[in-house]
């Protein structure tokens, strides 16, 4: 297993076979100004975060609450502007949202007045895809996430897990190269979550999309990701990047959870996370 702090990692150059990373986050900082009744204060949500994500790679962002995971994801999406630094997706510097990226929101954020199918059609509608084409693609995406039988239901008639699937189908509808997900399965029960994780792996295998997702669940991070980026708060920054040494297909969670590599990597991330909570290094009695 290789772990490397980002400071010591050199920037990847196009020299290695001419392959460019899909997403390049270069020294991104974000300061929020908070205006209270009289005073204004600033929060350093992100401090010079750099990260590269290869084409087709799955990267998990994790870390304590408030370390800037959501902020980073929103900056990649183009919903938030970085105070300094740049994000490049493909060969374009991000200045706003774009059809090359799709975001799955933490709480699905479906339009309550639209049926599942119409929700998935939304992005295509805005993009100007003709109606019959729209319907065809939306149906296909809903079937992809296993919701072929609930297409005409409104969100209030869907379960939490179903809503998340619709959100996923909606993000996939415009065929983004990069799929961004903010704690997509956080609020679900263990079984539903595993089902959706499996779904994501299958979609990844079929489409080869680059995926960046936020999670608090270390199991989920290690199960799905090629690399896990552990972030630290105050100011929000990259703490450690863990390469996940599990190779080959990931769908057999049962087997993977039994692997030594799984346990070791998970432990390594966990102890590093705890070091951040308790001080510099995990103390002996907590081991």
């Amino acid at each position, binding site marked *: 297993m290789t772990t490397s702090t980002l400071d010591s990692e050199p920037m990847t150059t196009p020299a290695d076979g001419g392959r460019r990373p899909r997403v390049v986050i270069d020294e991104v900082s974000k300061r929020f100004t908070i205006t209270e009744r009289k005073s204004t204060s600033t929060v350093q949500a992100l401090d010079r975060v750099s990260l590269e994500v290869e084409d087709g790679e799955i990267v998990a962002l994790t870390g304590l609450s408030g370390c800037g995971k959501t902020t980073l994801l929103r900056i990649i999406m183009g919903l938030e502007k970085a105070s300094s630094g740049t994000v490049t997706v493909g060969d374009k510097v991000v200045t706003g949202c774009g059809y090359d990226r799709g975001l799955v929101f933490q709480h699905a954020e479906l339009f309550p007045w639209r049926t599942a199918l119409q929700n998935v059609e939304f992005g295509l509608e805005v993009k100007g895809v003709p109606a019959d084409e729209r319907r065809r693609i939306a149906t296909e995406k809903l079937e992809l996430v296993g919701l072929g039988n609930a297409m005409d239901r409104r969100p*209030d008639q869907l379960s939490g897990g179903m809503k998340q699937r619709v959100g996923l189908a909606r993000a996939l509808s415009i065929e983004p190269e990069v799929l961004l997900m903010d704690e997509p399965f956080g609020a679900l029960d263990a079984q539903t979550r595993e089902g959706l994780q499996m779904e994501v792996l299958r979609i990844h295998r079929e489409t080869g999309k680059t995926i960046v997702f936020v999670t608090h669940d270390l199991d989920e991070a290690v199960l799905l990701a090629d690399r896990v980026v552990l972030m630290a708060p105050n100011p929000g920054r990259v703490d450690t990047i863990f390469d996940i040494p599990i190779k080959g297909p990931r769908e057999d969670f049962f087997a993977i959870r039994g692997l030594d590599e799984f346990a070791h990597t998970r432990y390594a991330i966990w102890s590093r996370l705890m070091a951040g909570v308790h001080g510099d290094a995990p103390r002996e009695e907590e081991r």
Partner: protein
Amino acid sequence: MSIASSTATTAETAEAGRGFWRRFLWNRRYTFVTIASLVVLMLAWEFFGRRMDPIFASYPTDIAKTFKAEVQDGTLQTALFDSLKPLALGYLIAALGGIPLGLVLGRYRIVEAAFGVYITAGYAMPMVAFIPLLILWFGLGFSVKVAVVVVMTVFPIVISTWAGVNSVPKSLVEVGKSFMASEAAVMRKIILPSTVPHIMTGLRLGIGRAVIGIVIAEFFTSIGGLGGLIINAGQQFDTSALFVPVVVLMALGVGLTRGVGWLESRVAPWYAGVSGGRDPE
């Protein structure tokens, strides 16, 4: 179980029929309570009303008699239409002007800063105070009635729509942005549908105020309409004739408000599923 019928099939239909009626009655149990309450009130009114001086009070059967007479000679219909026409036109103008205004006020800070105060002030102040001014501007005819209805109705419609836009979750707008929706598309596909329940609330509040508005306008101008009938009857101490338009107005107010409520459930059926309100029985 029924033992009245000898064959299984007729027993079943009888059972099903009885079940149907039982369900029919049970489903409407609250309606029956309402009706019972009304009947008790009517009986009490009839009983005590007959005992009082006819100059001060009337009673249901007497009102019904006058009602019939006024329908037969056509005065009631004429008055009703005289009131309904400006009411409908004024309400329409208020809705068509108020909804877009509310949407723009809610969506654009700068518009809110520029015009929000007037709307808040207009909503808070009793619009009756402006009627003399409106009479100066519009005279004593049809147009002043329309103007009063507009002035009475437009503010609740604007305020509700405006508040509705403010309560659109920011995250839904961000969904629009994440798909690169234009401002027009955000307005039409996200803000407007999301605000529909609030707009309908405004329309429901507005219709009640429109009825109040039309009566007040007719009191002030004392020409035509149901308000005119009331004033005339009052001046002639004809109490039962006074109650006829009052009852009609009551029915009108309730009916129109119900109508808008029904429209609400048709236009935004999804809202019942996400709001904390009770399901309709």
